[in-house]
C-alpha cells in the first residue's frame, strides 16, 4: 500500500530547482571547465524553474564559488555554463542548445524525455506524485564529468557504459541501493550542516 506522504505538497518546479542545485555537489568538472568565474546554472524552456533558482541561489556557494542562473535560448550563450537544464517547455528551437552542450563539459539535465534519447546526463522523470531522476554514466563519460557514486543509489535508474558482464542484476542492485540509502541519508544530513 502506498502511504500518503507528508501533508505538505510542493510545486514540481521548486523541487526541480532544488535538485539542480544539489546535483552540483555530486559532480566533478574537469579543471579546464571550472575557470575563475561564478558557477552557472543555465535554464532553457522552464521559466518557473529559473525563477525558483533566482530565489534559491543568492548567497549559496557551489563548488566554493558564487552561483548564478542564466536563462539561455541559443548555443552562443553557453560559455562558462556548468549545468544546463532543458525544461519541458523547450521546443524545437532548443535542439541547437542540446547539440552544443553534449560536446562540452556541461551537466545536461533533461526533463521527462524518453530515457537518455535527448542526450541528457540526468533526466527528470515522474513517478507517481514524485519527481525522480535517472543518471546516464555513458553520457557523463562523454562530457568528461565524474559522477560521485553516492548519487547513484538515489537515482530511479542508472545507465552505464556497456560492460554487460559487470552489470549487477537489477534486483540485487535495488537491494544494495536500499542498504546504501540509510547511510547516504546520514552522510547527507551531516554535509548540509
Amino acid at each position, binding site marked *: 500500500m502506498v502511504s*500518503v506522504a507528508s501533508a505538505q505538497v510542493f510545486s514540481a518546479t521548486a523541487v526541480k530547482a532544488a535538485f539542480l542545485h544539489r546535483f552540483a555537489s555530486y559532480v566533478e568538472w574537469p579543471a579546464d571547465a571550472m575557470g575563475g568565474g561564478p558557477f552557472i546554472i543555465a535554464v532553457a524552456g522552464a521559466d518557473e524553474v529559473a525563477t525558483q533558482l533566482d530565489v534559491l541561489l543568492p548567497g549559496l556557494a557551489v563548488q566554493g564559488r558564487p552561483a548564478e542562473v542564466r536563462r539561455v*535560448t541559443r548555443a552562443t550563450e553557453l560559455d562558462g555554463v556548468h549545468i544546463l537544464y532543458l525544461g*519541458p517547455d523547450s*521546443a524545437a528551437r532548443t535542439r*541547437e542548445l542540446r547539440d552544443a552542450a553534449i560536446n562540452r563539459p556541461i551537466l545536461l539535465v533533461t526533463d521527462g524525455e524518453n530515457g537518455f534519447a535527448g542526450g541528457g546526463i540526468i533526466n527528470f522523470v515522474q513517478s507517481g506524485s514524485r*519527481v525522480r531522476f535517472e543518471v546516464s554514466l555513458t553520457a557523463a563519460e562523454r562530457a568528461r564529468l565524474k559522477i560521485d557514486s553516492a548519487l547513484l543509489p538515489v537515482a530511479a535508474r542508472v545507465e552505464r557504459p556497456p560492460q554487460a558482464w559487470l552489470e549487477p542484476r537489477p534486483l540485487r542492485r535495488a537491494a544494495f541501493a536500499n542498504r546504501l540509502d540509510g547511510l547516504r541519508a546520514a552522510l547527507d544530513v551531516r554535509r548540509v550542516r
Partner: protein
Amino acid sequence: MNLPATSRPLAALCMLWVASPASAQIVASAADQISQLSRMSLEELSNVEVTSVSKAPQSLSTAPASIYVITGEEIEHSGATSIPEALRLAPNLQVTQINSQEYQIGARGFGGNLELQNFSNKILILIDGRSVYNPLFSGVAYDQQDVLMEDIDRIEVISGPGATLWGANAMNGVINIITRSAHETRGASLRAGTGDQETAASARYGASFGDDNAFRVYAKGFDRDESYQPSGDKAGDDWRKAMAGFRMDLGSDSARDRFTIQGDYQEATESQLAANDVDFTHANVVGRWERSGENIDTRLQLYADTTDRDQPVSGVAFDLNTYDLDFQQTVDTGERHQVVWGLGRRHHDYDIVNTPGLSFAPPNRTLELTNVFAQDVIALGARLELTAGVKFEENSYSGWSTLPDLRLAWAPNEHALLWGAASRAIRAPTPLDVDVEERVGSVLFLTGNPDFRPEQVDAYEIGYRSQPSGSFSWLFSTFYNEYDDLRTIEPAVGTFTPLRWDNQMKGHTSGVEFWANIQVASWWRISPGLRSLTKDLRFSEGASGLLGTEQAGNDPEFQVQIKSAMVFTRWSVDAMLRHVDELPSPPNPAYTELSARVAWRASEKLELALSGFNLLDDRHSEYALPTAREIPRSIYAEARWTF
C-alpha cells in the same frame, strides 16, 4: 401570433436533452518552498510530493492562444462538486445555471437563447479525449458529464476556435478535462458531505501492480435538491445519480510505451415538475496507446460511448451510440519544424422515440465524421514562431469543410509572449437542423432544412501574456469574430407555416479577456478576471428576420470575477466573487454572487471543509425564462479521509 410561445415546446424539449455547483493553485509560496527544499537531501527531495508534474500545463503557458488552466488544486479548493461549477473558475467562460439539473456554458458569446430555440452549441468539450457534446443538436447535457472531481488533474479552457486541432464544434471554445493517471491516484480516499442542496459520498482506491502499472476504481453518488420557481415555490427538479468507473495505466508515465484503459458508468433519475421522472444511463470505455519516440510521439485512441435517455411525458427519448478512432503523431523534424498530424473517424448511431409534437424524420440514422489534419510549428528565429495548420473534415450532412489556422507568436523576452491568430471554424449541421418536425396539434409547424449549411466563423485574435516575476502573471486578449450562415427561422412562402430552419444571419462580435494571478504574500493569492462582448448581428437580405437577432444567444456584455486563495499550515480559505451583467432577451437582471470555502487539515489523513455557494442572495436567477429557476444560497460540509 406569439411565435416564441408557440415554438417553445421544441426549446423546452431540447433543453431536457441538455443537462439536468474558487481560488488558486495552492502551494506554499515560492520563497518558502525553495528555502525549505534547499535544506533537503537527495533522498528527501526524491520523496517529496509535488502538485503536478505533468508536462502539458507548462507547455500551455507558452501556447499562442487564450488558454486558462483550472488546476485540480483550484477545483478542490473551490469546493465545486460538479464539472459546470468547476468551470465557473475559468474567467473566459460564461456559465449559466438554468435549474438544479441544467447549465448553459459558452465562450465569446453564443451562450444560447433557450426561449428562442437555441442552445450553447458552439463549444467542444472533451473528457480524457472523449468528445461529449451531443451530436443530435450540438449542445452539451451537463447532467451527464461527470468524473470523480478529486481525480481531475486540470481543465484547459481555450476561448476562441480550436477547430484545426479538435475539429467539429470547436468554434468559440474548447474545454479539455483531463484526469490524473492511475499512477498519481494510488491509495484510498473516502469522502462524504451534506448540505442544504446536496448530499454526496464517494470512494476511490488505487494501487500499483507489476513493475510500472497502476489502476484505480471509484464509485460516487449524490442527491441534489430542488431549485425554486420565481413564485418562491419549490421547482420539483431534484435529482440523484450513482456512478462508478476505473482506470488502468500500463507503463510508467515516463515509459516509452504507455497503455491506458478507462471507463465509467452512471445512472440518474431527475424529477420534473408535473411530469414523470427523466431517467438516463451513460457508459463509456476509452483505450489509448501512447509512444514517446526520439523524434516522434504517437497516440492512438479508441472509444465507445452509449447514452440511453428516457423522458416519459415530453417524449424526447433516445439511444445514442458513438465509436471513435483517433490517430495522432507529433514529429520533431529538426531545428525548425515541429509537425503534428492526425486523422480520425467517428461513428454515431441513434434512435429517437418520436412524439406527436416533436419528431425526427428519419428517427434513426448513422452519422459519420471523418477528419485529417496537419499543423507545423516553425521556428522563424530564436524568438519568433509561426504555427500553420489545416483540418479537412467531412460530416454526413454537409460534406467536407476546410478549417485552417494561422498563428504568429513573438517572445520579446523570456517572460512574455505576443501572438496574433486567424482561423476558421464551423458548427456542423445536426439532426435538429435537418431532420426535425414540430407539430402544433395536427399542423406541421417547423421543419428541418435538408440544405442547412454549417454555421461558420472567421476568427481573429491578438493576445499578450506575461510573467514579469514568480509572483505575478497576466494575460490579455482581444478578438474579432466574423460569423456567417448562423441559424434562423424562415416562414413558408404564402402559407407561413411550416417554418423552416435556414442560414440567414451574419455579423460580427468583438471583445476582450483579461486575467491575472497576484501572489500578494507567501500565503495569499488574488486572481482577478474579466471578459466583455459586443455583438453586431444582422439578417441576410431577403430574410424574414423572424425572432430577431437575439435568437443567436442571450449573452451578458461583461462579466468580472475575483478569486482569493489563502493557505496556512493546516487551514485554507478560498473565495470567489463574480458579477454577471444583465441578459438582454429575455431580460435577466445583473447579479453578483459569492462562494467561499474553509478547509482544515485535522491530521495527515483527515480533512474537514465547509463551503458556501451563492451566499449573497436567498435566491437568484441566472436566466429568466418561465421554465428557468432561481438558485438558492447553499452550504455544504464535507469530510475527506485518505490513507
